[in-house]
Structure formats: structure tokens, C-alpha cells
């Protein structure tokens, strides 16, 4: 588990930020993005994937969350 932050990107879309590793990457897809459910698997455009527990409604951004890495470390 790692602390991450998700924020609105300047050009629309979402940015994923993992302070521990100074990793900043656009999020290319998010599993649940509806008014009732938000979160799940995040795919990053650098090939990485992370999982955040889905929450009831889209949060106010930016938001700090706990995320789990899926698969091997990307680099």
C-alpha cells in the first residue's frame, strides 16, 4: 500500500502522483467513474496499474488515497 494523490490535470483528465517515488503520470483509465461509485483499478499511461478501494461518489480533487500496486513495478 502506498499513499498517492489524484489531481485534476491541467489539460483535463486525471494525474496520478506517488510522492515516495516522485512518480507523476496521467491516468488513462479508471474502472468506476459514475456518480454512485468511483475508484477501482487505475491504469496509468506509463503502463503501471494501481487499485484504490471504490468509494461512494467522486471525491473533491485533489485527494490523497491509499493505493495498491497491481502487477510488477513499471519503469
Amino acid at each position, binding site marked *: 500500500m502506498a499513499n498517492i494523490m489524484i489531481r485534476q490535470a491541467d489539460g483535463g483528465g486525471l494525474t496520478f502522483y506517488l510522492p515516495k*517515488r*516522485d512518480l507523476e503520470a496521467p491516468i488513462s483509465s479508471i474502472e468506476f467513474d459514475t456518480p454512485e461509485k468511483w475508484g477501482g483499478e487505475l491504469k496509468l499511461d*506509463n503502463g503501471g496499474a494501481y487499485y484504490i478501494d471504490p468509494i461512494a461518489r467522486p471525491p*473533491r480533487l*485533489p*485527494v490523497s488515497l491509499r493505493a495498491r500496486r497491481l502487477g510488477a513495478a513499471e519503469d
Partner: protein
Amino acid sequence: MTTLSRAETEALIAEVLEVYPEKARKDRAKHLTANDPGIEQSKKCITSNRKSLPGVMTIRGCAYAGSKGVVWGPIKDMIHISHGPVGCGQYSRAGRRNYYVGTTGVDAFGTMNFTSDFQEKDIVFGGDKKLAKLLDEVEQLFPLHRGISVQSECPIGLIGDDIESVSKKGAAAIGKPIVPVRCEGFRGVSQSLGHHIANDAIRDWVLDKRDGSPDTSTPYDVAIIGDYNIGGDAWATRILLEEMGLRVVAQWSGDGTLAEMMNTPKVKLNLLHCYRSMNYISRHMEEKYGIPWMEYNFFGPTKIVESLRRIAAFFDDQVKEKTEAVIARYQPMMDAIVARYKPRLQGKKVMLYVGGLRPRHVIGAYEDLGMEVIGTGYEFGHNDDYDRTTKEMGDATLIYDDATGFELEEFVKKLKPDLVGSGIKEKYIFQKMGIPLRQMHSWDYSGPYHGYDGFAIFARDMDIALSSPVWGKLVPPWKKTVAEEEVKEAA
């Protein structure tokens, strides 16, 4: 004075690495690369923010330097105690030239050194009592200070002093904030972690202290974040923002005060200059208070115009109109500077090796003068810094992270730049090699370099460095005669 192809740059790196033992070579190879502006993630080609190799010469600082020297030190109305032995604070005292307005020793304390001056007995028996006494004395001797920060040096963490509880008691006694900062020098791999620790201390002990107080902000309030007013940088920046019609509420932290920091949560936009040292607090304020932040670049007219327009885009048409007027007003001045210096500097090659934001931010200013940056690197940058740098640099230019003394020297020998921009430790070696060097940490006792006013000084300084007649006098007279005589004999 050569522009290398990718293959040549890679060959150069390989050649320089040859002298290292195998393990060291493998490690250092990850920190050196030929730039590829196309990639988004710098991690693919360069590793950064790792422990320096033992045995090589690096120019990194410690976490204490990052916290006391960079982030906290410039806050002028607080007293920053270098808690521990006397040397850490005294040898770095006033070295960064963070200018401020105020009467030193009365209501401003920027250039003074306060220390608990640890002796052997304090290490053996603990220094908490001494710290408590020191806090009392500070309050008696300097009653106009607005708060104290306790900047831990290495021994504090090693002997396990409880500076938090002493600070809390002291703060209650004097009725002013006392901030314990756990920035012992051994933490992390460079001063970079010190910046982070200092940001976290501000977050925990300062930032929210005026939440809920009456909101007197205007829709045009901004804060300048990560400008340390070196040689007056923040002032040159502030003038422009005020001319745009914005109200600068806080300067973090050059010429800044404690009250300014506490008022920052009410601003509408945080303007971030040094990303490396203060992105942490900007991100925190964005999450907690919903304040957007943007990185800007006030080096050189091209980048300034770009940044001014991007800042104005956050505000209404009135600000946008004023911004255009500001740009139009300064343009003739900039044109005159470029017309004067560009013909003298055109085509000159520069290599940079500095910290913080400069390895990428000043590239634009050099390009405005027709100069080209052929190599750059950070002392303590992270991945996100290199992400932002690769786009600014030309293809196949050299990028070096945490370069060792040896590597830098070899690169300069091979690439033969016309100018090196680096620190005081590099200055004399390169000058002795016959290459002009500008000390780009504190602008070589000049400055400001930010903003339109700064660019005028920047251009002049670069010209002075390059055009100095000394570079033609490097061969001592006795050697010259021999050489000349040989020529005569041959003829």
C-alpha cells in the same frame, strides 16, 4: 565547442565512466544520459535522488541545509536556532544572500546565526535543558521576534533529545509559536529531504494557525512560493505581479514573515517557482484549501511572457488586459537588451550544474541571448524534475545527475563549453582551465535574475563573464616567450 550526436554523447559517457571500478561504473551509468526530448517519463533514461557513491566527490548538502538554509532561514521575523554544534550554522551563515527589509537584530534576523553550541557534556547528558534556557534568553534579548524554529543538527537525532516537548513548553511560556524541525543532517540522501521535512513542519505547526479568522482576502490574492529572494529575486517578481493587478499576500520564503505564511491558505492561486523545494506544501494547500498552484518561470523574456499570460488566465479580463499592457511596456526594454548582448553572445555554449529549479528554468534565458545549453544536471533533483527538463533540452544533449567532481571536469574538457554555470566549488577549477564560470547558486554576488529587471542584469553578467580580457592572458609571460621564440626559431 562541438555539438555531439547521440552516439558521440553516449561514447563520451562511456569513456568517462571507464575509470570507475565495475560496480561504481554500473551505478553511475544510470545517472548519466543523452537527452531524448520525446520521452514523457525521465525514469526510463535517468535515475535520480539516490545515495551518492562513497569515495567520489559530490556537492550535495544535508537535510539541515535544506531546511534551515533554504526553506526556513529566509523567514525574517523568526529566529532559527541551529540546534547542535556551532559549525553547521556558522559556516553557512548568510551565504545564500536572501535579501530582506528590516533591522537586523531588532525585528529581522536573517543574517544572524543562533546556535545552542553543543559541547561534549550536552551530547552526554542531553541538550533539552540547554534548549529551554536558550529559548528564554532569545525572548529576553530579542523581544520583537515573532516565533522560533528549532533546526536539528545531526546529534539531536542521535542522542534522542525531545525537542518537541521543550518547544511546546517554551511556546506556552512566551506565547509565540516555536516550531521543532526534525531535519537532522543524516536524513535522506541530500538537502532535498530537508526541504520536504521543512514543508511538513510548516504544514503541521504554522499553516492552519489562522484558519477561521475573518477573511479579508480579495479575488486577486496570490502567494509567491519557492522564491528565496536571492539578490532580490522575489522583489523583481512581485513588481510584475502587482503591475498585473494581483495582490501578493505572501512570499515563501524570501523576505517572508510568519504572518504571511499563516495567511496563505486564503489566497486564490499559489505561484510556484522552485518546484523541488516547495511542491509539497503547494500540493497540501491544493488538497486542503482547494487552492490551485501553477509552476511559472521568470527567467528571460520569452518564458516571462509565457508565464504572465498563463497566470493571467486564472483571473478576469481586467487582469488579462493589464498583463498585456505590462508585456507591451517592457518589450522595448527587452528588445534593447537582446539587441545589445545577443550579437556578443550568439552561438556560445553553456553547461549548467546546479540545484533546485535552475538546471531547467534558466535555459530559456540563455536561449533569449542566442546561447545554447549543451549539458545540464541537478545536484539533488528527483524524477519529476527530469520529467520537466527533458522537454527543455535539445536532442542528445548531456544530462547528468549528482555528477561527481571527476565526471564534471571530464565532460567540460571534452565538450569545451564557452561558459559554465555552477557553484563556488566548481568555480576555480574551471576558471583555471580557462573557462568562464558564473556561480549560479546565488548569482555570483549579483542579481536579481528573475523578472524583466533581472534579465537585464543576467545578460550583462553573462557578457562580463565571457568577454573579460583575462581569458586571453592564461599563458604566463615566461611560457609565452618560449613559445614565441620557438616560433621565431622555426621561421
